[in-house]
C-alpha cells in the first residue's frame, strides 16, 4: 500500500450516521482521511474537484447513501460509474433501504457492494470496521499519483 493516507469519501446527510461512521472508522489501527459531503451535488463537485472542492483529494473509496438531498445517491452512482476518470473508484452503497429494487438497480449500475446500515449501534460499528478491514488491508486498489488540483504532479 502507498505511504499516502487512505482517503474515504462519505456521502451521507444524516448527522448521527456521519458521527457514528467517523467514530467507527477512527477506532481501527489503519490511518485514513475521511471527507464528508451531505448531498449528491456536493459529492459530484468533490469528485470533479470543482468549486468549492478544488483542492479535494481523489478518494480511494466512496461510501454512498442512497436517499440524499439535492441529487439522489442512485444518480450520483450512475454519474460516477459512467465517468471515465471516476469509475474505477470503489463505491459501497451504505443505506437503510432493504428494497430489492434498490439492491438490483445499484448493482446493475456497477456499485461495488451494497450494505444495509444496521439499526443496532454495535452492529453498525462492526460493519464499518469490516468495510475498513476488507478494503484497506485485503483488497488491492488502483494507486494514484494525482491528489489535489489539476496542477499537481502528473506523469
Amino acid at each position, binding site marked *: 500500500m502507498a505511504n499516502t493516507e487512505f482517503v474515504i469519501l462519505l456521502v451521507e446527510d444524516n448527522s448521527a450516521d456521519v458521527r457514528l461512521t467517523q467514530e467507527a472508522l477512527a477506532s481501527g489501527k489503519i490511518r485514513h482521511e475521511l471527507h464528508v459531503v451531505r448531498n449528491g451535488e456536493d459529492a459530484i463537485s468533490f469528485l470533479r474537484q470543482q468549486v468549492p472542492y478544488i483542492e479535494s483529494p481523489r478518494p480511494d473509496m466512496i461510501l454512498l447513501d442512497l436517499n440524499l438531498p439535492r441529487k439522489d445517491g442512485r444518480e450520483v452512482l450512475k454519474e460516477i460509474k459512467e465517468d471515465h476518470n471516476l469509475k474505477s473508484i*470503489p463505491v459501497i452503497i451504505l443505506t437503510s433501504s432493504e428494497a430489492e429494487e434498490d439492491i438490483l438497480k445499484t448493482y446493475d449500475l*456497477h456499485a461495488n457492494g451494497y450494505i444495509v446500515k444496521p439499526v443496532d449501534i454495535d452492529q453498525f460499528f462492526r*460493519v464499518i470496521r469490516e*468495510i475498513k478491514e*476488507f478494503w484497506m488491508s485485503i483488497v488491492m486498489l488502483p494507486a494514484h499519483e494525482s491528489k489535489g488540483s489539476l496542477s499537481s504532479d502528473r506523469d
Partner: protein
Amino acid sequence: MTEKINIKAIDILLVEDNPGDVRLTREALKEGKVLNSLHVVGDGIEALEFLRHEGEYATAAHPDIILLDLNLPRMDGRELLAKIKTDPKLRRIPVVILTTSKAEEDIIKTYDLHANCYITKPVDLDQFITVVKSVEEFWFTIVKLPPDRK
C-alpha cells in the same frame, strides 16, 4: 454476537484453472460459517456456458458471486469480466478478482471493467486461507448480494 443461519446456500462460481488453488479455496470456504455451494470451471469459455445455462450447464445454479482468476486458458479472465459486466442479465453478479497478478495495469483495467474488487492471491498457504475467509466474511455476511430474479 448471534450467528447467522443461512437457509439458502450461497452459490459461488470459481473460475480457476490451477487445481491446487481450487482445492485451497474449497477448503477455506468449507471452514467458514456460511453455507455455500462451490461450482468450479477451468476457463472463461466454460464460465460463460455455466452463466448462460448452455450445454451441460442447462440446469446450472445461478451464482450469487463469482471468484475470477485472470490468467485462464481459452478465454482470458479480463475478457470474461468484460463480457459479464456488459451483459444485462449477468452484470449485477459481484465479481471478485482473485489472481496472482499485482500489476497496476491489471488492477486499473479490471476496476474500469467494473470488477467489484481485486485481490492478489497470497503465496503463503495460511494467508491464502485467511484471504478467502475474509472474502466470505465481507461478501456473505456484511454485504447484501443481489437477489435472484429472472
